[in-house]
């Protein structure tokens, strides 16, 4: 069974036409992979669908804008995958 990171990386590779081997757990979706906000909506949709969750993008954006979080916390893929795992676990609880 593939890990959450593998599934996310596959989604990004397919959605944004980025070579799969360039997508690593430490990659930052915006700073390293240069994914813009519009493309990230497609990724969010694919993640929502794949995992049956709703990524709280508005909340994350607000936290970053308010200085309460950094983009690394949500957009470094290792961290994004952890957030997804938490959301999936919360859904099943």
């Amino acid at each position, binding site marked *: 069974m593939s890990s959450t990171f593998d599934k996310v990386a596959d989604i990004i590779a397919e959605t944004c036409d980025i070579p799969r081997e360039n997508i690593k757990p430490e990659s930052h979706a915006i700073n390293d992979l240069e994914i813009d906000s519009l493309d990230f909506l497609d990724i969010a949709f694919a993640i929502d669908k794949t995992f049956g969750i709703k990524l709280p*993008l508005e909340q994350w954006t607000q936290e970053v804008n308010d200085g309460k979080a950094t983009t690394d916390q949500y957009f470094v893929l290792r961290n994004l995958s952890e957030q997804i795992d938490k959301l999936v676990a919360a859904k099943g609880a």
Partner: protein
Amino acid sequence: MQLEYFQMIDRVVEIDVGARRIRVVCTVPQQSTVFEGHFPGYPLMPGVLLIECMAQTTGWLISVLGGFVAMPILAGVKEAKFRSPVFPGNLLEFEGHVQHEGSGYAIGQCAGRHDGKVVCEADLTYRIMPYPTPQFRQVLFDWAERIDIAVKEFAK
């Protein structure tokens, strides 16, 4: 339909909140300055304006489903297809569907028909943004009521 004012929808016929579907109708005007250029002597509804029809149809549904607390802004159009020409005087019916309501965005589809035959279709992506001002929200409320959306029933 008033093309010059981007009033694409004449009337909302049905909104099914549970099924997340909307059905609207509109008639392409016989006369419009748009047809003076598109095309001289051969008036043809521009495909970009059919996209606007589809965007408004599913956009109104997103507004309804969200309780009119924020507005959908068209952000992406995929798989747009124009299957038959549309001419002045044609009565069109559009059916929109919301596939997914994400956080700050929504994904939907829409198709337009003339005489029961599909003339256009597209997949649509919207950002959900705050209304720029309370006054603008009221402008959209008034617009929605003019096309038979029961705003008071849906607005939160």
